[in-house]
C-alpha cells in the first residue's frame, strides 16, 4: 500500500501532470492526422523524454499513445482514412455511420469504449504484472534467451503475411545491434574505423529514422490528393452513447478482455487486437448482416479492444523486458536509458516507479474523456492542418531530436540512412516493427546467449535442461518449424504443389 501511495505522490506532481496534459494533446494531434501513428508519436517524444526523470518520461509515452489510438478514429469516421493502424479494422463501419448522419454517435461511442477498454487494460496490467514478476525472478539467462527469441519470433511472424520478410527485417535489426564493441571479447564489429560507430548505433536515431523520416518521405511522394473534410458542426457527442454501451455491455467486456490478451502476446499490439475483436464481434453478433452498413456493435468491441491492448503490451515489456509491439519496443529502449532495466528485478528495486506507470495508465485514460471530447469538437480544424507545412516541421523536429541525444550530427546521418532503408523495406513488403524489436533486443539476446553458452560450456542441450526454459524453448522451436510443417502438409494434401 505504501508503494501505491508513493507512486501516486510521484504522478500527482504539478510537473508530471503538466507533462501528461501536454503529451495528451500531442498524442491526440498525432493520432488524428492520417499517416502519423501512435508509434510515430512515441518516436518523436523520446528525445524530449530523454531529458526527463523516469516517471514523467514514461507518463508522457503512456498518455500520448492512449490518446493517439483513440484519435485515429477521427479521420476514420470523417474521411474514411484510419488515423492510426489501430483504427483500420472499423474505419469503413465508422464512415458508414457518418454517412447515415450518426457522426456524433460513432465518435462518442468510440471515445467511451476507448476509455473503458483503456481502464480495463490498466487494471489487468496493475494486477498481473507484479504477480508475473515474482515468477520471473526465478529466471536465468537460459529463460531470458528463449523469452527474447519467442518475442522476436512472434514479432516477425505476426506482423506480416510473409514470415520470411518479417524474419529478414528482424535480422536487419539484430545486425544493426551488433555494430560496436562486442560484449564478450571487446572486439569492435562493423565499425569501419569510425570512432562514433564504436559505441554502437543508438536506438533513438534509428527509430526516428525508421518510423518518422520514412513516413515523411512517403507523405511527400503521395500522388493521390487527400480527401478534404467537410465543414461540420458536432452536436451533443454523448447523446445516445449510454444506451449503446448498456445494450452492448458484454461486447465492451469481450473487447477489453481480448484486447488485453492480444496486447500481452509478444509481437501483437493494438492493431491486431482491433482486427480480432471486430471479427469476433461479427461472428457472435445476433445481427451479423448489419456489419459494414454502419452498425455500432463492432465499434464497441474494437474501440475498447485497441485501447485495452495498450495496457496489455506493457505486461511482457515491464516483467520480462520483451516488447508486445513496436511502441513498447521503444519503451524498453527508454527504460534502459533511464537505468530501469526492465525485468522482474525492477519490481523489487524500484517498485514505486513501476506503480507510477500503473497510476499513469488510469490518469491518462480518465483524461482521455475530456481531451478526447475537445478533439472531437475541433476535429474539422485538426484534419485541415496542411500536410506541406506539417511534414517539413516534423522533419526538423526529427533532426533536432536526434541531435539532442549525443549532440553530434552523426546521429542525424544514421537517422537519414535508416529512414531510407525503412522506406525501401516497406515498399517491398518488409515490415519495420521487427527490425526495431531486433535492434532493441539484440543486445539482450546476444548477452544471454553468450552467458548461457559459457555457463553450459558450449553444450546446447543445457538450453533445455531447466523446466521453464525447456517449455519456452520447445514453443519457440515449434513456431520456427511451423511454416515448414504447414508447407509440407499442404504439399501432401494437394499434389499440384503450392496453392
Amino acid at each position, binding site marked *: 500500500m505504501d508503494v501505491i501511495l508513493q507512486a501516486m505522490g510521484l504522478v500527482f506532481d504539478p510537473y508530471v501532470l503538466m507533462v501528461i496534459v501536454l503529451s495528451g494533446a500531442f498524442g491526440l494531434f498525432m493520432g488524428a492526422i492520417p499517416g502519423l501513428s501512435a508509434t510515430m508519436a512515441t518516436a518523436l517524444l523520446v528525445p524530449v523524454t530523454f531529458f526527463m526523470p523516469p516517471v514523467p518520461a514514461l507518463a508522457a509515452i503512456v498518455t500520448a499513445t492512449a490518446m493517439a489510438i483513440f484519435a485515429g478514429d477521427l479521420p476514420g469516421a470523417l474521411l474514411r482514412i484510419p488515423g492510426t493502424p489501430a483504427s483500420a479494422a472499423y474505419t469503413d463501419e465508422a464512415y458508414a455511420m457518418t454517412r447515415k448522419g450518426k457522426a456524433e454517435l460513432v465518435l462518442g461511442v468510440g471515445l467511451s469504449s476507448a476509455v473503458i477498454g483503456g481502464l480495463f487494460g490498466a487494471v489487468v496490467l496493475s494486477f498481473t504484472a507484479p504477480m508475473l514478476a515474482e515468477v520471473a525472478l526465478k529466471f536465468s539467462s537460459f529463460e531470458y534467451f528463449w523469452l527474447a527469441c519467442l518475442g522476436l519470433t512472434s514479432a516477425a511472424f505476426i506482423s506480416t503475411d510473409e514470415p520470411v520478410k518479417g524474419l529478414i527485417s528482424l535480422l536487419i535489426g539484430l545486425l544493426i545491434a551488433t555494430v560496436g564493441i562486442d560484449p564478450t571479447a571487446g572486439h569492435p564489429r562493423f565499425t569501419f574505423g569510425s570512432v562514433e560507430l564504436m559505441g554502437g548505433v543508438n536506438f533513438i536515431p534509428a527509430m526516428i529514422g525508421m518510423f518518422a523520416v520514412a513516413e515523411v518521405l512517403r507523405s511527400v511522394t503521395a500522388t493521390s490528393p487527400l480527401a478534404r473534410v467537410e465543414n461540420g458542426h458536432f452536436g451533443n457527442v454523448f447523446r445516445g452513447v449510454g444506451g449503446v454501451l448498456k445494450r452492448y455491455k458484454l461486447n465492451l467486456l469481450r473487447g477489453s478482455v481480448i484486447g488485453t490478451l492480444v496486447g500481452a502476446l509478444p509481437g501483437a499490439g493494438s492493431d491486431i487486437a482491433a482486427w480480432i475483436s471486430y471479427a469476433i464481434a461479427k461472428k457472435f453478433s445476433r445481427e451479423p448482416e448489419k456489419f459494414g452498413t454502419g452498425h455500432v456493435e463492432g465499434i464497441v468491441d474494437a474501440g475498447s479492444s485497441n485501447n485495452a491492448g495498450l495496457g496489455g503490451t506493457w505486461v511482457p515489456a515491464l516483467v520480462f523486458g520483451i516488447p508486445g509491439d513496436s511502441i513498447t519496443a521503444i519503451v524498453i529502449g527508454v527504460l534502459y536509458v533511464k537505468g530501469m532495466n526492465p525485468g522482474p528485478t525492477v519490481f523489487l528495486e524500484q517498485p514505486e516507479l513501476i506503480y507510477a506507470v500503473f497510476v499513469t495508465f488510469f490518469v491518462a485514460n480518465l483524461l482521455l474523456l475530456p481531451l478526447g471530447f475537445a478533439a472531437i469538437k475541433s476535429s474539422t480544424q485538426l484534419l485541415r492542418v496542411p500536410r506541406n507545412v506539417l511534414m517539413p516541421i516534423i522533419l526538423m523536429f526529427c533532426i533536432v531530436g536526434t541531435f539532442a541525444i549525443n549532440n553530434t550530427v552523426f546521429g542525424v546521418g544514421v537517422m537519414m540512412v535508416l529512414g531510407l532503408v525503412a522506406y525501401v523495406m516497406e515498399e517491398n513488403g518488409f515490415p519495420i516493427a521487427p527490425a526495431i524489436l531486433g535492434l532493441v533486443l539484440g543486445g539482450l539476446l546476444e548477452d544471454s*546467449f553468450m552467458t548461457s553458452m559459457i555457463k553450459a560450456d558450449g553444450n546446447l542441450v543445457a538450453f533445455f535442461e531447466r523446466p521453464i526454459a525447456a517449455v519456452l524453448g520447445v514453443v519457440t522451436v515449434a513456431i520456427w518449424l511451423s511454416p515448414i510443417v504447414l508447407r509440407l502438409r499442404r504439399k501432401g494434401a494437394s499434389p499440384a504443389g503450392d496453392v
Partner: protein
Amino acid sequence: MKFNDAVSGLFFILFALLLFYLTRDYPEMPGQSYGPDMFPRLIAVLMGVGGVLLVVKGVKEWSSTPLLELAEWTRSPRHVGNFLAVLAGLVFYILLSDRLGFFITGAVVLGGLMIWLRGRAHWKSSLLIAVLTVVVMHLFFGQFLRVPLPWGLLEDYAW
C-alpha cells in the same frame, strides 16, 4: 521501388556472404569455439536462408512480377523532386549546421522545403513559419532542455 522478390533475395544472399567476409579475422576467445564472430555469422546464415526462400518465391512469380517496378510517383518529376528535396535538406543540415549554426541552417532547410512543397507563391508565409518554428524549437530544445545547438555564424549574438 518494388523489386521482384528474387532480386531482394539475391541481395540478402550477397549481403550474408559479405558479412562472413567482414567477420573473417575476428579474434577467437581462448578455449572456446564461439567468439565475437558467432552472432553476426548466425545472423548471416539465417539471412542467407531467408534470401534463398525469397529467390524461390520470386522465381515462381517471375512472369507476373517485373524485375523492378517503380512506384507511380517516380514518373512525376514533381514528386521525385519532393523526395530529393527532403534528402537534400537532411544532407545540407548534416554538412553545414556546425558552421552556419542552428538558426540559419534550420531556417534554410525548413523554409526551402516549405517553399518547394507549397509553391513559390506562398514564399512569405513559408519563410515566416520557418523562422517562427526555428525560434520556438531553439527556445524549447536549446533553452529549456539545454541541448547545445550550434550557434555557428551567430556565435557573437548567442544568448
